[in-house]
């Protein structure tokens, strides 16, 4: 792993104004993310996990502190939102293609890439379906495909697998692991699942109750590639226990 971080977050704080003054959501959050690192963020509901991702994506400006990127400018971002967030008027294929359109990629290349992605995500046969005809899990897979299609440097995933059934979810873990390793991406992923985070991450950050601070920063030194049965190893059990205690 390279030593200069791709992303440095320093004493980051976020505050929203509401009826009774201000709502402090994040407070004094500091951490680095290195190139090709897979970071998971765990924390109770309302601790500010989504807010953290939105800050990194530049969708919000921090109230305090700063976020700096290695090459000064924001890297290319692929984002999966907590809800699938598809465009109802676009077919599956057109939804997945959106980032390529925004990048001005030629139609032929775009279509080719999209077809590949549809295959990878197991969405064949639904290319021309509209979002209203998709199950929740399928919609989420379309959203993941859309986040990957333009080959972003930084993936920001907000509980991307929450609406998938257990089988698909584990399949998606393997796919994401594979893509992450093959394409050398940096990933920040919010999740509620300890198993998921230990299966995928190099590092797990645990946030406290609101206002979210970093309560624990755990290195996940499990060997890769991680197979299903890794969860029955004693080291996995130890890490899982540690995280569970931190989450309270």
């Amino acid at each position: 792993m390279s030593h200069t971080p791709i992303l440095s977050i320093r004493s980051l704080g976020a505050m929203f104004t509401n009826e009774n003054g201000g709502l402090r959501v994040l407070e004094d959050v500091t951490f680095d993310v290195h190139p090709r690192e897979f970071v998971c963020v765990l924390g109770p509901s309302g601790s500010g996990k989504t807010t953290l991702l939105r800050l990194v994506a530049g969708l919000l400006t921090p109230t305090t502190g700063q976020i700096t990127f290695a090459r000064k400018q924001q890297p290319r971002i692929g984002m999966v939102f907590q809800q699938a967030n598809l465009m109802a008027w676009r077919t599956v294929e057109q939804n997945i293609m959106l980032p390529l359109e925004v990048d001005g990629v030629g139609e032929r290349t775009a279509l080719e890439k999209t077809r590949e992605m549809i295959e990878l995500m197991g969405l064949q046969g639904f290319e021309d379906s509209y979002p209203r005809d998709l199950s929740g899990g399928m919609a989420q897979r379309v959203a993941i495909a859309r986040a990957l299609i333009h080959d972003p440097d930084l993936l920001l995933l907000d509980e991307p697998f929450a609406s998938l059934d257990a089988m698909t979810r584990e399949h998606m873990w393997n796919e994401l692991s594979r893509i992450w390793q093959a394409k050398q991406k940096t990933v920040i992923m919010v999740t509620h699942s300890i198993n998921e985070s230990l299966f995928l991450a190099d590092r797990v950050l645990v946030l406290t109750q609101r206002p979210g601070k970093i309560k624990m920063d755990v290195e996940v030194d499990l060997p890769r590639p991680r197979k299903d049965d890794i969860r029955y190893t004693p080291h996995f059990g130890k890490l899982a226990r540690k995280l569970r205690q931190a989450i309270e």
Partner: protein
Amino acid sequence: MIRRLTPILLSAFAFLLGWHLLTRYSGIPNFILPSPLSVWMRFLRAVSDGSLLRHTRVTLIEILLGLFAGVLFAVVVGYLLAKSRSLEKALSPYLIASQAIPIIAIAPLLAIWLGPGILSKVVICALIVFFPVLVNTIVGVRAVPTALYDLMNSLHATRAHILWKVEVPASLPVVLGGLRIGATLSVIGAIVGELVDAREGLGYLLRVGDFQYDTPMVFVAVFILIGLALTLYGFVLLLEKRFLKWQK
């Protein structure tokens, strides 16, 4: 197709039959309620001497120009008002006041200012179309899901991309709903203008027919107007079918 048309044809037939019997046996004189046959004969005569086509063309041009101008203006202003609360606050008193004045009351004024030519009709038509399209544009643009803005911003999309790929398609259903109302109102607008002062157009035919007790001519003009309104309405439905097939 035939099965779908059957009820319409049946009701039309029943209507004509009822009308015929009424004029035949009630003793109402022809200049008060003309028989369907005399209306038909009057129609044929107006077609063959070319007057109907000429007047219909004038009215149709007024309607189309007025509709186009009204919709264009409403969509642009509506978009700006939707995007800017302060602009809306500044302008909404005037907009609402303008709606409190019946169009009939200002039509003579416009005829004085703009002359008896088609311009005054186009303007009246545009004014009457303006408001429903404006309101629907504001509602439609305000209802664009914020999450889609987040998506586009995470992709560093330009303003133009956001406009054409999100705002336009997302608000289109509501805007077209406004256009449906506007399309039917546009016919009324042109006629109001022509009734006030005109040398040409279906409104002029109405006035002349009324003046000369040529009641069958009045009926012909009214039926043509109904036909125009239905055609415009049908055209909007076609637009909806073409652009909103992702709904339902």
